[in-house]
């Protein structure tokens, strides 16, 4: 081993540590031409030629940027965007699904949509091994909720520790293992999407920590079904009722917080918000619907939701379950989104009418179509695809499999197959895909130092699970994740994972142990691990860099002795470099 041989010098100018100001000046140059002055009248700007509002977020097409990666195989695309990255064997299984890309994607999507038919033995074994007290205690939402409430709010936890941290920490650990080990990967990607869409900040309160598993369960139970049903399930969940303050909203003074976000985030989206106009000033579409919403719609909807609460405190049956309080309900007539709600409707009907109006509104279809395409394809999906998906979403708003139809339309589109590198993985995907590609053998346990160590390091990335304080969920646009801290933190944890070992010195992500016996030269080692981690060839320069790192000046065809601890360390460091490389971040 020669330590005097230096790795290749980068060709780029490195004589200064200064962050160059050159590019920012260029970036600012972009600005001036692109700044659009505020539209003088919001309504005029929103009133598109078709009678529907044009988006206030026009989402201009992306700028052509240099150096973007080549489009990889359909399997790589699919498994990096509709799953948390390929684990060993996943790409081969994908390839075996059909004779061409289209049929392979179609078959994979069909399999994943029918998720309950996919056996999931490894996840089950891991969860069993973790032996959680609360997680998975029931698949019936009400039973789960009442049980967790009894244990962690009322102080009757069977293990004697009634801290609300227990259900939160079990939820965190279980979610990591689902991402790492579940074969139902699309289900996990969608659960992540819907948790952001209906975001509740888990550390908002002890009640949020106690009820979060219930929220996750109802999202999972509805995400392959109907959006209107999911919307109502969330509206009735104590997690949302408490987080956005509806649980005490009464006719004495409705609390607007939940309804503000119901319109702006959960359904129509800010692009359909017309501000402080009066309701009668809002133009209508061909079917008489207002094209967007105004503050008065939010206020009126808040009246409709008065009395939607749950059982808590000493004066009720203290179960945490949903409770409609008729005496708190504003019984008088209301007008929301052009829908007239007469006085004294049946219990809960005012709010259900609001949810109907929102779920049926084409603006909701457009908002959800764009968000789903943004997650599954890119920040700037083709408008034609958004239009198609939005129309499907709205046309099928009452169908029991509405959402499955929507996902299928997106995932089998040409744009899905042909888009690559317009976004990078968020930290959850970076670390999740590293653990999957590295076939980590890691059961996350309660009261376990190694598990805590992993989570503590991961939480530096800025995407600590369920910990986005505001109701809009973790950002899902490239611009939000371009900054340095998430990158440095991801580099750090990825480079730490390759050395992560237990008390016996066994590696959780065993690079050396997984390297086949016949793979020993620098060339072979690089090619084996590149195939494992990326599922595709790297750009030539990248491969050369990695081979030179592994060979350290020796002939890259000579076999290396992995029994030598220094060489074994170098192989781990090689895999760490792959996880830290730009190519690993594209999605």
């Amino acid at each position: 081993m020669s330590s005097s041989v230096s790795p290749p010098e980068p060709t780029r100018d490195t004589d200064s540590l200064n962050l160059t100001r050159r590019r920012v000046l260029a970036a600012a140059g972009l600005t001036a031409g692109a700044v659009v002055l505020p539209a003088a009248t919001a309504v005029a700007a929103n009133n598109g030629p078709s009678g529907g509002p044009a988006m206030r977020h026009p989402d201009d097409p992306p700028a052509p940027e240099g150096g973007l990666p080549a489009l990889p195989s359909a399997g790589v695309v699919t498994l990096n965007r509709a799953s948390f990255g390929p684990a060993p064997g996943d790409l081969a299984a994908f390839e075996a699904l059909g004779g061409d890309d289209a049929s392979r994607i179609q078959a994979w999507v069909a399999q994943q949509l029918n998720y309950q038919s996919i056996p999931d033995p490894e996840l089950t074994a891991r969860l069993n091994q973790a032996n959680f007290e609360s997680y998975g205690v029931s698949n019936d939402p009400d039973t789960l909720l009442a049980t967790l409430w009894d244990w962690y709010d009322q102080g009757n936890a069977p293990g004697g520790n009634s801290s609300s941290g227990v259900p939160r920490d079990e939820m965190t650990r279980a979610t990591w293992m689902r991402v790492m080990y579940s074969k139902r990967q699309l289900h996990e990607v969608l659960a992540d999407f819907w948790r952001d869409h209906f975001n509740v900040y888990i550390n908002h309160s002890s009640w949020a920590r106690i009820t979060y598993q219930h929220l996750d369960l109802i999202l999972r139970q509805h995400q392959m079904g109907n959006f209107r049903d999911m919307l109502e399930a969330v509206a009735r969940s104590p997690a949302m009722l408490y987080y956005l303050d509806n649980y005490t909203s009464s006719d004495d003074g409705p609390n607007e917080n939940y309804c503000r976000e119901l319109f702006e985030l959960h359904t129509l989206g800010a692009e359909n918000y017309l501000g402080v106009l009066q309701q009668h000033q809002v133009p209508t579409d061909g079917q008489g619907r207002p094209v967007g919403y105004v503050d008065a719609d939010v206020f009126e909807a808040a009246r409709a939701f008065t009395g939607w609460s749950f059982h808590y405190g000493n004066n009720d049956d203290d179960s945490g379950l949903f409770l409609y309080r008729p005496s708190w309900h504003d019984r008088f007539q209301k007008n929301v989104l052009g829908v007239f709600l007469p006085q004294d409707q049946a219990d809960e009907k005012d709010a259900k009418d609001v949810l109907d109006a929102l779920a049926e509104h084409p603006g909701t279809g457009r908002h959800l179509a764009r968000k789903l395409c943004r997650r599954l394809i890119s920040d700037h999906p083709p408008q034609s695809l958004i239009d198609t998906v939005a129309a499907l979403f709205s046309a099928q708003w009452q169908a029991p499999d509405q959402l499955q139809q929507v996902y299928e339309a997106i995932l089998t589109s040409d744009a899905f197959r042909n888009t690559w590198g317009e976004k990078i993985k968020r930290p959850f995907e970076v670390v999740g895909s590293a653990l999957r590609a590295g076939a980590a053998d890691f059961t996350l346990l309660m009261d376990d130092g190694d598990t805590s160590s992993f989570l503590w390091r991961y939480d530096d990335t800025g995407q600590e699970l369920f910990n986005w304080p505001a109701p809009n969920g973790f950002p899902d646009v490239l611009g939000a994740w371009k900054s340095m801290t998430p990158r440095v933190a991801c580099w750090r944890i990825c480079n730490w994972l390759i050395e992560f070992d237990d008390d016996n010195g066994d590696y959780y992500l065993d690079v050396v142990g997984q390297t086949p016996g016949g793979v020993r030269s620098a060339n072979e080692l690089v090619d084996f691990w590149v195939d494992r981690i990326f599922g595709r060839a790297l750009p030539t320069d990248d491969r050369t860099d990695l081979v030179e790192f592994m060979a350290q000046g020796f002939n890259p065809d000579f076999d290396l002795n992995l029994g030598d601890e220094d060489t074994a360390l170098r192989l781990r460091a090689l895999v760490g470099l792959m996880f830290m490389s730009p190519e690993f971040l594209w999605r």
Partner: protein
Amino acid sequence: MTTRRGFITGCSAAVAAFAGTNFNTVAFGDPNGTNEDILISVFLRGGIDALNFVLPIGGVDRGHYEAARPEIMIPTAGANAALPLGGIFGLHAGADTVDNGNPAPATLYDLYQDGHLALVVAAGMHEDNRSHFDSMNFMELGTPGTLTTPTGWLTRHLATANNLPPEITMPALAIGNLQQAALRGSTETVNMTSPDSFSLQVGPWQWRDAQRTTLRSLYNGSSWLHQSGYDTLDAIDIIELNSDGGYTPANGAVYPGGSLGDHFETLARMIKMDLGLRVATIDYGGWDTHEGQGENGGGYFLSHVETLSRALAAFYTDLDGSGANNYTSRVTVVVQSEFGRRLRENNDRGTDHGHGSMMMVLGGNVNGGVHGTWPGLANGQLFDGADLAVTTDYRRVLSEILIRRMGNPYLGEIFPGYTSYSPLGVVSGPDLPPIYGPEIFADGFESGDTGQW
């Protein structure tokens, strides 16, 4: 090495062809005028209840205030009584709280009394929007009504400032996990929570140096990701070189526990590394007080105000040295929020989204006191019949800091569409005529990212 001036000169022909006359004043600004001020933008996310922070303690509006806020009004006497600011205004008592275990030399209220803190009442944005996310983006992008602007106002300030040295090691710092929209599109911004975790001292130590060299090579490419990763590696090198572990605040400053205190401490530490910092951003969330914000001046809002006030006071104290350590003479902190909250409390002893808010400006060159025009709280004086009106456009305050402290008059670039600047008098410094004119870099380059979040 490409220098800043070199770049501007190098592209002058192309830029001049598009932009015409104004270019020369930018490209060949006063070579002697190097500005060393530091502008720190603090954003209170969620919409601070400004009417419980700077509030009427006398006059007819005290009556309107008490009538609208029977449960959550800030008292004028007894525990948590508002701190008199002169005239009819008082400041929340949380601005004068000290940690009894670690008494700091000065509270925020002390700094007000010493003339280092300006409070601008009824400041905000005229846009009629009660959405957090729209309002924050409008403000931070510097383009009320437009969400698709590819760069933030601070990014454009740095890009147009013609009084900075050609090379700056670390001109911009975004404290926190993600980069704020005010710095959107900036590729020279370093974003961090703490210098201690901004390093690559992980992985097998025997191979760390070789790994880092290979990583540089892997990120040596033409995509934005390659360039950004390369810049990140540069930033890591700089910070590892300059953070020799540990930090002791100066002058007995005591930062409050929690992330806000940590973030201000990180910022002070980075300023003292003398890496050339010119702008920085810090966030403090948790102001969306729809429920249970606290009665009689206490509760949640009190503790939140205390944390904010203690962090600001500790930061000022820490930087308030003499000679080369007199950083406060170069620092201007501006605190704002996306909107204020409704005058009338809601039934949950909280407040819903409103309109007019307040701004705070803290620094060694601040003209302390209460500024702005109070619009009144009578029914007919409220915005939309419910909220404090906006009488001072937030851009007016920021523009004054840009001109008088940062020496940057290019308001047309930084706040396009804002053409009515006149100084309010919150800071001292030379006045330059604002330049609203042609866009100096209207050169048809590719547009940047326009995504929303």
